[in-house]
């Protein structure tokens, strides 16, 4: 599948994977993560049941302190 991950095109072997699998594959391990899939906020409790598929737009946001 081909998706847009953080504004960049990214190709995965799998046809679809869960959000958690994607985070593992990409080694995103920050504690303050926010995930938006096609503009929709995905709750942490849904990371194992929400699938990312071909054509999806995924935003992985790492919240860090400063302001």
């Amino acid at each position: 599948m081909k998706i847009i991950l953080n504004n960049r095109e990214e190709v995965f072997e799998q046809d679809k994977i869960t959000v958690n699998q994607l985070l593992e594959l990409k080694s995103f391990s920050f504690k303050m993560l926010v995930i938006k899939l096609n503009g929709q906020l995905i709750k942490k409790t849904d990371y194992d049941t929400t699938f990312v598929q071909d054509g999806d737009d995924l935003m992985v946001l790492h919240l860090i302190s400063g302001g």
Partner: protein
Amino acid sequence: MTFDEIKSILKTKTVGIAGCGGLGSNCAVALARVGLGSLVIADYDVIVESNLNRQYYFQNQIGMLKVFALKQNLLMINPAIKVHAFDLRLCMSDTIEIFRNCDVIVEAFDKAEMKHMILDAVHTHLPDKYLVMGIGMAGWGDNELIHSRTSGKLVVCGDELNEIAEQNPPLAPRVGIVSNMQANAVMEILLGKNPYKNSAS
């Protein structure tokens, strides 16, 4: 659009700013200068000397509550602006309550936990509102890393990389850039994309 036309639209708009530190104070000043009608600002903190390396306050305001000092400064720039100042440490229910009537909400908190709180609050309870966040602006240099990106009604400005630390403090130039990028994003949300094309392009 002429500046008079821009002002005539902006004066009918209300923007909420959560936090009046480096991001919030500078973003508020930019919006006051371009003629925004109303601001809703919230913060619980008082000004200390170390804030003056990036926040829009003055020596003689040290010890004042940030929301009241900011209101004073905004009115000195633009006496027509309405400023609703809330002296409080925002929780989820207050956030929803005080920003409910804003056209756009600007996240200008310091701590990552608070950034998470407002993102959650706005997405869950005010899903039709735009939220403009500032993420990553500590240190200096690396102009090319600072960017802005959008997902649905969420706009993120910053380098998304440089967290504040003892060895990586937030400083006027980068905090100023990101806060003004947030103000710029707010203007685009309120006015639409700038249709003007320079004849050279």
